[in-house]
């Protein structure tokens, strides 16, 4: 499983003429950082990176807030039409994103967010999956806790903020990590909404870099790939357990 990754890493240090040498050197003749320099010279890689960080950060924070509120409302509050709204909610989870693409495109354009990082944030500010995940969690919290808070005179906003949220650490962490990962790797949306280089996020930036000099400069492309992999792998190392938990949790929910 690791071999392709290692190969890419090895090539990123190599010199241009080595790519066509057969047999391909497993370890490059000398460790050179030219390719890495090349990445930063050709495109504003740092800008792509910061854009990605910004978009992903906003999406993650927004989802934590909206999903926990939505989940709490569906789990605990009583309001008219709750069941029907919830079923509609779940049904919308089945609709693939490409199907809603054109209507969403028109809405976003109407909001004046075309070629704006906001276009990558607003459609992802809430998610049905997240609300569902947290609803399931909130339902496991005993009623007594909430009753106690009510006797102490807490309104539902206070219950949400003081009682529910502090208890919801683990599912919120799971949601944050899953959201972070999918937002970081999102390619389709930026492809459609972003058309100037200074607004690009990393995945789109990679394609842009390839377009700049194509196959002729493989080393630079490989170096960019490695630069792209490093944050993801660090992220993976830190959150591996939560990530695995999140995937299995979402998996078991479906059965």
């Amino acid at each position, binding site marked *: 499983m690791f071999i392709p990754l290692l190969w890419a890493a090895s090539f990123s240090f190599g010199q241009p003429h080595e790519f*066509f040498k057969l*047999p391909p050197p497993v370890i490059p003749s000398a460790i050179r950082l030219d390719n890495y320099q090349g990445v930063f010279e050709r495109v504003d890689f740092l800008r792509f990176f910061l854009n990605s960080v910004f978009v992903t950060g906003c999406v993650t924070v927004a989802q934590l807030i909206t999903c926990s509120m939505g989940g709490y409302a569906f789990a605990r509050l009583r309001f008219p039409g709750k069941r029907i709204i919830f079923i509609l909610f779940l049904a919308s989870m089945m609709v*693939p994103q*490409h*199907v809603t693409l054109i209507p969403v495109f028109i809405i976003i354009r109407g909001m004046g967010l075309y070629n704006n990082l906001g276009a990558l944030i607003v459609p992802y500010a809430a998610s049905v999956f997240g609300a569902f995940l947290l609803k399931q969690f909130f339902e496991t919290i005993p009623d007594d806790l909430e009753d106690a808070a009510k006797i102490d005179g807490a309104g539902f906003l206070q219950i949400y903020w003081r009682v529910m949220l502090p208890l919801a650490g683990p599912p919120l962490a799971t949601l944050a990590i899953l959201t972070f990962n999918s937002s970081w790797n999102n*390619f389709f949306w930026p492809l459609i909404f972003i058309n100037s280089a200074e607004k690009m996020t990393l*995945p789109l930036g990679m394609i842009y870099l390839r377009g700049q000099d194509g196959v002729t400069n493989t080393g630079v492309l490989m170096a960019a790939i490695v630069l792209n992999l490093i944050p993801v792998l660090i992220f993976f190392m830190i959150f591996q357990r939560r990530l695995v938990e999140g995937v299995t949790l979402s998996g078991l929910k479906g059965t």
Partner: protein
Amino acid sequence: MSLFDWDFFSDPDYVGLDNFIELSQDKLFLTTLKNTALFALFATSGNVGLGMFIAIGINSIKWRWLKAYLRTAYFIPFVISTVVVALMFGFLLQESTGVVNYYLSRLGIDRIPWLSSSAWAFRSVVLIDVWKHVGFFTLIFLAGLQAIPGELYEAALVDGAGRRVRLTRITIPLLTPSLFFSLVIALIGAFQVFESMFVLTNGGPGDATRTVVMLLYREAFGSFNMGYAASMAVVLFFIILMLTVTQVRLGDRWVFYR
């Protein structure tokens, strides 16, 4: 919107079902539909089948560290962005200078036109998809395996059941909920493929790896046939919906719930 003819700039014209009639005669659309369906078939069976196989293998390993290591190793590609994966393989699979072909030729296998022949490009895309996603399904099956109570195996041992009987009579039946879930998820995902083909082959050679979503993207944002693209989206949605409903219906017959 699928009932309108609209180029995005002028006012939309109502055209009734014309878009759908045009679609049913559009050879390119039918080709992409066929490609997508075949891709879904192979990628789903590859991902789910291999995922189950690997999970059962990992689960039977005694050393804990090796188990954890393998689980991580298979899962890592899942967190990497598809674009990066596709760019990387695009390089490794080059026909004359690619590393993969070099080592194959050392083994006495002729160079394979991974990305330049229609048949191989399609297989490559499926292979890469499996490389990327199989870890996810492995994880789901591992979770399913852990939920099987050990007493069942002990009871089977007392009854003198061999390895094969334990596998086919206990493990696999009790994994059917995971299997069902995986099939549903994998199929829905596979019908929406776009990124790996877009980056790796851009639909080519010819239209061998063009999928419905790629055609939709081109129609909507290349030629600005918004109405026509929307009608493709509607067709795609109904196909996915029907497949999912069918799976759920059939699922009741073969999935074993405790």
